[in-house]
């Protein structure tokens, strides 16, 4: 039975995340011993303390937040759509947040006002949510939501391409392309303060949907007749995912495959329960992004390997492997 295994799984994942968080704090170009580094976090104002507090700590916190957001959003969306191939990008939020950020870079706003980029990304995410809700209609089911999301995704992607296409400034293009690859390098505590409120709001909105997701296993009619308010659920879900993905994209760019692969990998371990998958996938996502962010710094120090490139590069073949295994088992 899965009952005693579940708390064990959550405890193991929590330990893993804590260990990776520490490892992330201890990873960097400045070759300093672990004890000295950690002590510097709580010490005065010398250079090492500054490095730890202003560079490594925000990077580790953002890695945790972005990963948890991607994993949780993926688990919730898969549960809601009852489709293991769903991911946050599917309802158009990622693409729209990216478009907002791209516009901020292109117009030069981000150069004059550093907060413009994350704020524009959040605005893009929020706008996409409103559009999807309008397109899907008040009683629109999962299919209407997916179709509306695909349309928004395509539109935002095309608009981003248009900006690149017409951009007279090669430096802006360069910056846009690198930003879209996703990275946690050179982020400050300011980024944490921008993203954290939105992400906390997202976590708070999605956490109570677990019971409803569980009920949706048997379809929308069965869920509605067992007390799930589908309209309210949809609203909480879309707003929560927009807050999480908007916040994550605003500070880290687009990091792919975490929201798709992490819930998929953990599903079996939680006995396929969509409610139990939510916290597990949040922890799993945090572990994956923290690990990937350590890897980009270790594999190619000085080359600024992008986080999103690594997650897709490792994630895609791994996902293919999962599909092949699933096919062999005839599931």
């Amino acid at each position, binding site marked *: 039975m899965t009952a005693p295994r579940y708390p064990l799984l959550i405890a193991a994942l929590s330990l893993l995340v804590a260990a990776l968080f520490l490892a992330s704090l201890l990873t960097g170009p400045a070759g300093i011993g672990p004890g000295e580094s950690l002590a510097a976090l709580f010490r005065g104002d010398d250079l090492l303390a500054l490095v730890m507090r202003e560079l490594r700590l925000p990077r580790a916190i953002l890695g945790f937040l972005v990963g948890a957001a991607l994993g949780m959003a993926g688990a919730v969306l898969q549960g809601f759509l009852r489709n293991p191939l769903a991911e946050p990008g599917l309802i158009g939020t990622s693409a729209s947040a990216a478009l907002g950020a791209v516009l901020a870079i292109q117009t030069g706003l981000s150069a004059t006002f550093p907060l413009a980029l994350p704020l524009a990304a959040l605005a893009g995410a929020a706008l996409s949510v409103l559009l999807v809700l309008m397109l899907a209609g008040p009683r629109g089911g999962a299919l209407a939501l997916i179709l509306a999301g695909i349309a928004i995704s395509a539109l935002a992607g095309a608009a981003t391409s248009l900006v690149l296409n017409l951009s007279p400034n090669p430096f802006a293009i360069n910056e846009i392309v690198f930003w879209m690859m996703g990275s946690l390098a050179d982020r400050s505590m300011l980024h944490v303060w921008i993203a954290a409120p939105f992400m906390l709001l997202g976590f708070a909105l999605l956490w109570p949907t677990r019971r409803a997701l569980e009920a949706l296993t048997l379809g929308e009619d069965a869920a509605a*007749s067992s*007390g799930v308010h589908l309209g309210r659920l949809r609203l909480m879900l879309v707003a929560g995912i927009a807050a999480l993905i908007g916040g994550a994209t605003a500070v880290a760019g687009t990091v792919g495959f975490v929201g798709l692969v992490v819930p998929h990998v953990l599903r079996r371990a939680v006995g396929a329960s*969509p409610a139990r998958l939510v916290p597990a996938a949040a922890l799993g996502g945090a572990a994956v992004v923290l690990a990937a962010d350590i890897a980009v710094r270790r594999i190619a120090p000085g080359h600024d390997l992008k986080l999103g490139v690594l997650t897709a590069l490792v994630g895609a073949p791994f996902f293919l492997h999962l599909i092949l295994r699933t096919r062999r088992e005839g*599931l």
Partner: protein
Amino acid sequence: MLELRALSFHRAGQPVLDGIDLRLGPGEFVGLLGPNGAGKTTLLRAALGLLPARGHSSLAALPVRERARAAAYMPQGREIAWPMPVEALVALGRIAHPHSASAADRAAIERAIAALHLDPLRHRRATELSGGEQARTLIARALAQETPLLIADEPIAGLDPAAQIDVMRLFRRLAGQGHAVLASLHDLGLAARHCTRLVMLHQGRIAADGPPEAVLTAQNLARVFGITAHVAPGPGGILFQPLDTIGGGAP
């Protein structure tokens, strides 16, 4: 338990349900009969408020949470999205009771599992079961909701004969304990034998409503189903055997 007044639903300008009046009281096991497309599923969904129908339904008028404690529903489409264990699926019935003590939940789940003989399957993944076993799991889920009214859309389709009779007896027993059951059925023989009352639906209207022997008349069967049948009183209920289609076989 359930009161429908002038319930109507139109789809693309066509009436699917047309002025349905129906009252269900405790102790009744009502079989909802009708040929394909008569509006059985639409009637059940509209009664629950899952469709925006016109007219009055006492269930649809309730807030969502209260409705879940008044009626359980087993939909016709037997959707099971994730490979969850049978026991966990049955436990989904308790979502309607968020404030219930876990011991009460446990007891309700055990009663439902025992009633549908699911004990040997309880740790199996539901998606790996046969269609009939899945149907029994979903009936158990609705049962675990422990509501005064149980609404089921073709609950016995795809079950083996023994399981069909078991489920019909179970529903009758529930009615005997003061619950009410409303189930759409295609097996007229089982409906005739086990239901306390039959409601025959024809083109979105109620064509007949009453005890089985009063509904399953030669005239009603010819008009609604286009069949002839042999209906006779027998030991332990009516015996019903369809004989032929009217108009000489296939249309």
